[in-house]
């Protein structure tokens, strides 16, 4: 039984990666988008290295949120168009797990890579080294929650032709707690305060999302596909 459950999860994880490797363009897009958005901020602000250092972390967080949001639409839409999604729903034995496999694969292609790239982006914003660590840990804990929550929106809008804006309206308000605690860690750090409680809160949100979101995603897919 347990082996079967794990099998479903790993099968979908592997298949997602297989598909993404065949389609490297869409794999790279969110990463490029992430960098471009973050680098737009200095152009719109006065030239001031101290200011950049202050806002750098927040800017990178907002860029990560937007890059995650941008990549959400493709999570289920391709599967919906070619009919694999309805096959998945019919063989619904472990639907939440199959969905979780897809979401984890999706996160490892967006959130994980974004987190790994963030230290380099920090250099452009003149962010000090001890803060780069805080930002990295925050992104690693926060972005999986973003992807899990976003997948609910992606599932709800999968049948719509232009679901992109609707996903943003639905999902962005739900992203606020993660953004607050993730970016808040940085300002705590600057003031020399303890950041452990924010780490715990982000981890708690992640655990909550990890346990509840797959069921919500599965229910949303069942409700909208017909």
């Amino acid at each position, binding site marked *: 039984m347990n082996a079967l459950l794990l099998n479903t999860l790993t099968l979908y994880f592997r298949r997602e990666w297989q598909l993404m490797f065949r389609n490297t363009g869409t794999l790279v897009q969110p990463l490029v988008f992430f960098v471009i958005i973050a680098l737009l901020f200095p152009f719109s602000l006065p030239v001031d290295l101290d200011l950049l250092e202050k806002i750098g972390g927040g800017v990178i967080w907002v860029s990560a949120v937007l890059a995650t949001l941008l990549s959400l639409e493709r999570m289920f839409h391709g599967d919906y168009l070619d009919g694999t999604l309805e096959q998945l729903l019919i063989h619904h034995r472990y639907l939440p797990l199959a969905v979780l496999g897809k979401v984890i694969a999706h996160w490892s292609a967006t959130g994980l890579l974004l987190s790994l790239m963030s230290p380099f982006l920090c250099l452009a914003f003149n962010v000090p080294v001890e803060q780069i660590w805080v930002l990295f840990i925050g992104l690693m804990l926060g972005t999986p929650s973003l992807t899990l929550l976003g997948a*609910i929106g992606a599932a709800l*809008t999968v049948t*719509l032709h232009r679901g992109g804006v609707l996903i943003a*309206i639905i999902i962005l308000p*739900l992203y*606020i*707690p993660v953004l607050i605690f993730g970016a808040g860690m940085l300002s705590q750090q600057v003031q020399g305060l303890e950041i452990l409680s924010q780490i715990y809160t982000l981890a708690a949100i992640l655990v909550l999302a990890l346990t509840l979101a797959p069921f*919500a995603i599965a229910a*949303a897919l069942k409700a909208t596909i017909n």
Partner: protein
Amino acid sequence: MNPVSATWNFLYKTYHRLASPREFYTIAQYTTPVFGVLAFVLLLCGAYLGLFKAPADYQQGDSFRIIYVHVPAAWLSLMVYVTIATAAAIGLIWRMKMAFVVAICSAPLGATFTALALITGSIWGKPIWGTWWTWDARLTSELILLFLYFGVIATYYAFEERKTAEKAMAMLAVVGVVIVPIIHYSVEWWSSLHQGATVFAEGGPRMPADMLTPLILMIFGFMFFYGYALFIAAQNMVLNNERKSKWVRELVTVNINTTH
């Protein structure tokens, strides 16, 4: 029969009657005017007492009187969201048509209350903080709540097929209500500029009675107004949804004949 089971039976029967669109429509025809009259009387009394009888605040002067709109609107904005989520959950679990109607009809009303709370809060803030907007916890939470309402409404109208729209909207409302406490807590942590809770602080209300009475009247007035507006909106939606059914056709023909 003991009173408990009698009450239970009554509630059970009412629930089942309300579950049918036709029964709901008939019941709502009687309840709507009652709610309307109660709302009118309560709001009138509350406004009179609040604006003319209640003493001016020793710090804020007469400008505090906006509380009689701001606090009820803010209360209702949360209450309506919880109502939507509850109705949505009932609709999803027991496949009850009327629950979805109640949920979707409540959404624009709740959004309006939220917008009203935001606008009055902003107007109130101008003399107190010297600015129209501060990023204080409750005002920010209220703003996020407005976005949640927009999400629910936008989801419903994005789908052509009504059954799908209802389910998608309901699911979003339920997800939202799980996250609302987390949002509230996070915003609270993020900013703690605002004054403490005014109405029901620990150890009883801190407001004097002649200030508090109009506020309570206004809150109940707002609630009845919400009920009144909800019944009207839900009746219209029921008529539209069931326009192909026999009873609506008969109803419409009878009405046309009587007006001629």
